[in-house]
């Protein structure tokens, strides 16, 4: 028999492809949760401290003696504890951007050792999925989401650098110093992109860098002072200008980003015609923290990260809390103001963005931010260790509360009177503001698609997955996010979904393909491998919603999976997945 000439090249090509694929499969070993159940006593002590502070917050003991019978200060009951699977789901979404796989859930349930959640958190933090995902989320605070000046700014290099730092668990203050005082070429030194991200209209924008620095590293929006003196805090216009002056030397050369003294002189000259004065580099408080040696940017970096600069640690604690819960710790605060000759105190609520913290020790806020102080202090004493910070936050009571609160368990709100309803709503908002219930937070687009993709597979998609699975995941995620829309840097502010997103989830190709019964996918494998309709239903619910079906759900779905005439209708499994993907429970963190 003569072999057609085409066969050999095809054979070679297939062989090369197969070898390449197998070579590219990551050799990284799967990170099993450590069997050694040693959670340090030191961690326990800090968690107990945070929990005590949370209890004071729940009891309303945040304004000292001044506490009154005011409704906003009345004690609230915390919600009961959530079950472990729900907490594992929260952890997985926050640290890896996906829900846990069926495989992980089964292993987790089989783990009967003590401190199961703490050990699993440690394992998740050691997984490279954490470094990659968290780098992307933190990067928003440092370089935003814009693509910037193409030739001078490489966002991918920045996130790759950040991911490497997280993988090596480098101290956070070192990272900040690297970014602020970076030098060199943006393609080679990833951190340089922190600076080149602020290059627009043919020059560096020191104002943008000052604004970003204050927001990202101090949790302060002093850029409002760029145009006017901040009405509420003490920031003044010239303080902002003094901060910006640290970046005035920035320039480009063949060696990349450098400091050029003449740039500052030029900017000063240009500013003379302008109304706003351009003072020399200055910091708005504690100038004694500025070292005498080093470049302007190195001095600024040292001042920002100075061990006594509480704003620095409070800012990162508030942000990481926000990334874990979907809402920063200081999102909604009571402000006390004293009015009238009798000095009567009044309280008002204020909504704060993640980078808009009140000054430490501002008496108007009482001790509502005690939790941030404890987290910040622990962060400092442990070498600015981000993983430790995450461990503490996720081990504290607030992270483990149910998202259902007894106060909201009304039989039917539709039957309530308008005023009762309003009162109940306000009560729930107070409970949420004080972290006595886990908040309902809309998942970010990559978490939604990450979860859909994970639900599509029985095994965990990680570095060990086959390259093909990971490539599919990568492209699907990108396409989906393009269509779904990215919330950008406002990601920690409450946003509703859009009609476009609802249509995409209901009728889009992704949801359709991901719910088709095909071999090697969960919708194909689960029905084939599960011994009974009961098991099918349980596995689908576990792999998508990380829980087992309720009685009502069983009553709805079991007849579909096992019809009385023995003949299952077409697309039953696909329709089950469709419903799960579109349910609020799937796309809201709870």
């Amino acid at each position: 028999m003569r072999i057609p000439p085409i066969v050999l090249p095809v054979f070679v090509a297939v062989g090369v492809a197969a070898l390449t694929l197998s070579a590219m499969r990551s050799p990284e070993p799967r990170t099993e949760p450590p069997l050694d159940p040693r959670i340090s006593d030191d961690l326990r002590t800090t968690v107990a401290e945070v929990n005590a502070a949370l209890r004071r917050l729940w009891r309303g003991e945040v304004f000292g003696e001044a506490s009154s019978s005011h409704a906003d200060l009345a004690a609230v009951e915390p919600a009961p504890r959530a079950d472990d699977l729900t907490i594992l789901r929260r952890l997985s979404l926050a640290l890896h951007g996906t829900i846990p796989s069926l495989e992980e859930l089964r292993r987790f349930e089989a783990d009967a050792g003590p401190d199961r959640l703490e050990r699993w958190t440690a394992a998740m933090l050691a997984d490279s999925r954490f470094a990659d995902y968290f780098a992307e989320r933190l990067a928003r605070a440092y370089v935003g989401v814009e693509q910037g000046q193409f030739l001078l700014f490489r966002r991918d290099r920045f996130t790759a650098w950040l991911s490497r730092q997280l993988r090596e668990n480098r101290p956070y203050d070192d990272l900040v110093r690297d970014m602020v005082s970076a030098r060199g070429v943006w393609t080679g030194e990833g951190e340089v992109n922190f600076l080149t991200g602020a290059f627009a209209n043919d020059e560096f924008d020191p104002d943008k860098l000052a604004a970003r620095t204050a927001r990202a590293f101090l949790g302060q929006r002093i850029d409002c002072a760029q145009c006017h003196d901040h009405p509420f805090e003490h920031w003044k216009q010239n303080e902002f200008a003094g901060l910006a002056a640290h970046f005035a030397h920035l320039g480009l050369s063949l060696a990349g980003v450098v400091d050029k003294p003449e740039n500052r002189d030029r900017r000063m000259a240009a500013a003379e015609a302008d109304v706003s004065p351009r003072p020399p580099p200055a910091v708005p408080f504690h100038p004694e923290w500025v070292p005498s040696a080093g470049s302007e940017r190195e001095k600024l970096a040292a001042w920002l990260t100075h061990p006594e600069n509480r704003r620095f640690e409070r800012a990162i604690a508030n942000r990481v809390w926000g990334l874990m819960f979907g809402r920063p710790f200081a999102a909604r605060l009571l402000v006390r103001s004293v009015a009238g000759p009798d000095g009567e105190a009044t309280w008002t609520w204020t909504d704060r963005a993640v980078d808009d913290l009140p000054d430490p020790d501002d008496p108007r806020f009482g001790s509502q931010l005690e939790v941030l102080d404890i987290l910040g202090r622990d962060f400092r004493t442990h070498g600015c260790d981000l993983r430790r910070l995450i461990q503490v936050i996720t081990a504290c009571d607030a992270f483990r509360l149910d998202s259902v609160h007894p106060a909201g368990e009304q039989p039917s709100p539709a039957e309530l009177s308008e005023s009762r309803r309003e009162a109940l709503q306000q009560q729930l908002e107070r409970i949420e503001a004080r972290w006595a219930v886990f908040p309902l937070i809309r998942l970010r687009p990559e978490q939604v698609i990450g979860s859909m993709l994970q639900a599509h597979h029985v095994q965990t998609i990680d570095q060990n997955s086959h390259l093909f699975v990971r490539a599919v995941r990568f492209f699907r995620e990108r396409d989906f996010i393009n269509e779904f829309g990215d919330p950008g840097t406002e990601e920690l502010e409450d946003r509703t979904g859009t009609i476009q997103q609802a249509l995409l989830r209901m009728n889009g190709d992704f949801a359709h393909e991901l719910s088709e019964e095909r071999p090697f996918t969960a919708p194909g494998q689960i029905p084939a491998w599960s011994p009974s309709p009961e098991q099918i239903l349980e596995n689908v619910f576990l792999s998508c919603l990380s829980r087992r079906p309720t009685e009502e759900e069983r009553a709805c779905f079991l007849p579909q999976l096992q019809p009385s005439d023995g003949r299952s209708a077409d697309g039953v499994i696909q329709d089950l997945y469709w419903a799960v993907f579109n349910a609020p429970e799937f796309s809201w963190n709870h």
Partner: protein
Amino acid sequence: MTHHSSHHAVHASAAWRWLLAPCLRSRRAILRVACAGGVSFLLPAMSAAAANLRGSERKKSLITLWLAGGPSQLDTWDPHPESKHGGPVRAIKTSVPDLKIAHLFPQTAERMHHLSVIRSLVSKEGDHERGTYFVQTGYRPDPTVVHPSLGAILARSLPDESVEIPMHVALATGDSFEAPRGGYLGAEYDAFRIFDPGRNLQNMRARVPAERQERRLENLQAISQAFQRRRELQAEATRHQQVLQQALTMMTSEQLRALELDDEPRAVRERYGETRFGRGCLVARRLVEQGVRSIQVTLSGFDTHANNFEGHQTQARILDPALAALIDDLAERDLLPSTVLLCIGEFGRTPRINGLDGRDHWPHGFSCLIGGGGLRSGIVLGATDPDAQVADKTRPPHDPVTIPDLYATILVTMGVDASEEIITPIGRPLRLAEGTPLDRLLT
């Protein structure tokens, strides 16, 4: 909030009723945008569907033809063949005496009496993303707040209960930053994006036959109820259900047909051109007929750093017929008096021709076309002098017009108070548009 009163008798099953139930939901405090002096939400619903109204009875709509990349003023609406920087473009007469435009736009030239030209737009943003932000919102990028685009402001200020499809639509969008956003007004005012107008509408229809869709909704109801039962108020605040209802309403709405082009005669489609942009302009006209408030159609490809003239020739072959067909249709259907037509990009291009026969970014004096919606037509505002601007880059054009002025003008002609202040989420009051209306364009 008012609620939908439309009937869906076709889908009378329990699951549909549950999903389409009128919503009496109060929105969460954080999502509330306080509106100082705004009464727009209190306006009574229109007595008749927008689709049946014509002329001055109609609430006005805006169509923006977004020329992405920065069109060259010299090769479009402000030709200067007498200048050594004019390039190979010729100036041709138009239907307005003394007004000449580039010869690449012969069909538009015949219809210039419907439009006015501004030749002296000024901006300070010479980067695509920042320039787009500025020209779409009237505000320069500001890290403390995301401003809403003009289209989002209009969708919010001029609601219409009879419209069951999105009121703010972006057709043929390219880069994600080109899609106009709701900014601090909320994600519900983001433009509804359609990548390939007239095609690929599968996301807007149920994927399965009615019987299976029924089962899907029953399943969804079962799973949603388990979640909602113990946290009804919290679940309500997510608005998940409400958004789903709106999407389902849209999926079954007759008005959705406005997004399809199957029933348009071939001759009509050919007049607009069988391109994404041409189809987008035709869909835009159909959406205006349904009462959609604000539509942007994007034509990318104006970033001609090399071979500027050839680039603009190519672009003009797409833009000229589509624009002409759109003007004709709007005029013929008596929709032009109620539809503002704006043709603009994020900036213009340098008068100086670079070594690659290209032109670079130039925000210091560029052009746009504007007309319809009760604005005066046949007017020319401002002028540029390429020779003088090449000699002195800082020299402003004659009679400069700012984007905020342009937007204040559009808001006024559409019946929106441009000076209305909105309290943004950070507590700072901001005007809808900072500029002063251009009296010369207003009647």
